């Protein structure tokens, strides 16, 4: 009799924990003021980055950043500005990955979040844009 009850309680606990796991994994929290601010900053910068992606001057790296892959595609007088743009974008991206991990109370997920983004930036890049393959070579979409 007592054994049965214990078994039932254990079963109930197991079911409850399963249900809570399913709920916790449905979505990642991305609606925080910090994430929204980074997102807005990146959206604004994209107007300047888009032509650089299209010309192939800047490419998407395999680690979720952007990189000036072909400096010769940028006229010398503008090169410093483009370098600044790339650095600012990578700073925002690092902050974005960190903030998402933190918003979900899992700072240790930052690397996984970066890898997920790296894959999705590349998957969703426009035709003609350059990206880095897993082996590190540059390829064109």
């Amino acid at each position, binding site marked *: 009799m007592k054994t049965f009850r*214990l078994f039932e309680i254990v079963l109930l606990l197991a079911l409850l924990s399963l249900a809570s796991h399913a709920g916790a994994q449905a979505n*990642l929290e991305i609606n925080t003021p910090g994430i929204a601010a980074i997102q807005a900053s990146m*959206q604004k910068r994209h107007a300047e980055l888009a032509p650089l992606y299209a010309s192939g001057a800047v490419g998407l790296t395999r680690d979720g950043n952007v990189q000036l892959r072909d400096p010769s595609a940028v006229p010398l007088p503008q090169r410093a500005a483009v370098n600044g743009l790339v650095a600012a974008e990578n700073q925002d991206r690092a902050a974005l990955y960190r903030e998402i991990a933190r918003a979900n109370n899992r700072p240790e997920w930052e690397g996984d979040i970066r890898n997920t983004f790296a894959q999705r930036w590349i998957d*969703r890049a426009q035709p003609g844009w350059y990206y880095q393959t897993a082996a590190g070579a540059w390829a064109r979409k």
Partner: protein
Amino acid sequence: MRLEKNRLALPGVLLAAAIAAGCVTINIYFPAAAAEKAADRIIDEVWQLKGGAPAPAPKPEAK
């Protein structure tokens, strides 16, 4: 009588502890599908893809 009660209590506590430990382990797993969804929502915003050309579907993956 008393002995029998104790004998049942110990496995019960052990089982509950095992489940609690399993709980923690499962929760630590990175939710790859949820992360992909979150990434897509942010990429939509940053690249202004909403309403434009449909995005390629994420590659199928094991869950």
